[in-house]
């Protein structure tokens, strides 16, 4: 699964990528263990209030976008997914697709400014994939789009929640 793959990434890369790291992570007592067990999602995976996630790649040039586990659960059984035609330049909040579930048409919005380079066609054939693994970015997963990210997109990430903040947000 994606979470396992992430935990195998070299710690050094994450340290470079974490200029805004949570100070807790730098406590000497926990540094060693965290470097190998904590998910770098803390740095790279962000969530919107609209329940989309975006995960930046190591090189900070590309990212994957999807809807959150919470959203997939709240939507109920997804019966149709509409995806955009790549390439497509979008800004924050622009619609990048739509899902239908339980008589509801819901927009999927872009969490950041980016250019969509490919979409997950699997969702068009088997829409239920998005319920099974909405945060799974593997080839069999329910991710929505792969994107290219520029400077503006990187800045947009600052306005989003990390996993812990998002969890708190959904529990409110």
């Amino acid at each position: 699964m994606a979470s396992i793959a992430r935990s195998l990434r070299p710690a050094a890369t994450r340290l470079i990528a974490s200029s805004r790291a949570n100070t807790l992570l730098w406590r000497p007592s926990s540094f060693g263990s965290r470097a190998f067990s904590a998910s770098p999602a803390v740095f790279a995976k962000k969530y919107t209030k609209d329940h989309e996630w975006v995960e930046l790649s190591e090189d900070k040039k590309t990212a994957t976008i999807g809807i959150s586990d919470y959203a997939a659960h709240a939507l109920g059984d997804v019966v149709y997914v509409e995806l955009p035609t790549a390439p497509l330049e979008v800004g924050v909040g622009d619609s990048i697709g739509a899902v239908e579930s339980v008589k509801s048409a819901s927009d999927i919005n872009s969490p950041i400014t980016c250019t969509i380079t490919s979409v997950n066609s699997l969702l068009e054939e088997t829409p239920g994939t998005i319920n099974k693994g909405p945060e799974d970015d593997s080839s069999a997963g329910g991710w929505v789009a792969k994107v290219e990210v520029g400077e503006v997109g990187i800045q947009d990430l600052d306005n989003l929640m990390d996993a812990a903040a998002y969890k708190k947000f959904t529990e409110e």
Partner: protein
Amino acid sequence: MSPSRGASLLFSHSRILTPAPNIHKWQLRFQSSLHQIPNAETQIYLSRSQSPYLNLSIEHHLLTKSPAESTILFLYTNSPSIIIGRNQNPWVECNLSLLRSSPLKPDLVRRRSGGGTVWHDEGNMNYSVICPTSKFDRDIHAQMVVRALRRLAVDGVWVNERHDIVMGSSVAAKPWKVSGSAYKLTRLRSVHHGTCLLNSPNLKDIGKFLRSPGKPYIKARGVDSVSSPIANVEVQNADFEDAVVKEFQQMYGHVDPVLVGEEEGDVPEIMKGLKELKSRDWIYGQTPQFHFSYPTHPSSEAFEEVGPTVSENLTPFNLSFIARNAAINSACLSQRPTSTQRTSSLGNVKVHEIEDWSQYVLPSRDGTLVDAKSRTTEEHETFVKDLNRIFGVALVG
């Protein structure tokens, strides 16, 4: 509920709906209420237009342009129309040639919300509640309508597990559906709208409009309708309008209803929405990808309901294609017994732009299609006739 109580609601509280007919008309004609949607937290609009395209466009305008925290009730009645869901296939959902030939002249409309196909006419009223997505709930406003119906002494109605309002007695085998729900969720705002069959004179005909000759031949992505037995609740439109307004006011506070209508079509955003909703690119072009296959595949699960007709069993012609945004690609036309591939001119043609299939599945130019047997011409005619019937381009009696 007496009719006079309905009238008192409309004429005693509302500033816009003053009893003086001249002022009323003047306001309706020259001043759209929706150029600038007010900031009020609670708003009520009643449409006096019966255009399904305009009413849905006003609703969409209210959804996209109203203040983020406001809650809005919008009630409207449409002239006869078939309203398909956002992600549905018109060739699967309705009988297009019957739509054209019926004296009722129903409009075909693709709405922006999800769900299945419904029938609207002047005996059906639609309610719509727009509220923040954070407060979205699939049942809360269906329950509001149930309470409105109970106000009107319609008993034995409840919201079922499909979020529809049904009517029946506890001993009845299967309750009747009287109201269907659909939803559209955007980033900040959501709309729940629903039908309510009050006194439709067309109940017995609705099934005919919703039975498609194309269904057995089409395997479509998107959303299938679930058909249900339907009934009228037998109340008058004005009484229902009054009762729903009262229940809404009880939930969100007393505000006066504002009348809207044809003049709202002048609001630029509504005009734009209206143009899109009426366009064939929206109605047909937004159809999710589908696969067409002639004759039907009796073996396929999707085609179990209706087997191939006799003429198809004999037909030497096979046609299949995939249509994405209603544009045909991967068309394959062949003829038995040799399974000779025939050239068709269907590539990139939009299904809804075909007025006569004979133009597109003609014998190829070298005439090879008519060389096998003398009856081929007749079979080709049957084939073309079938295609025209399936896609609803030929009028039926």
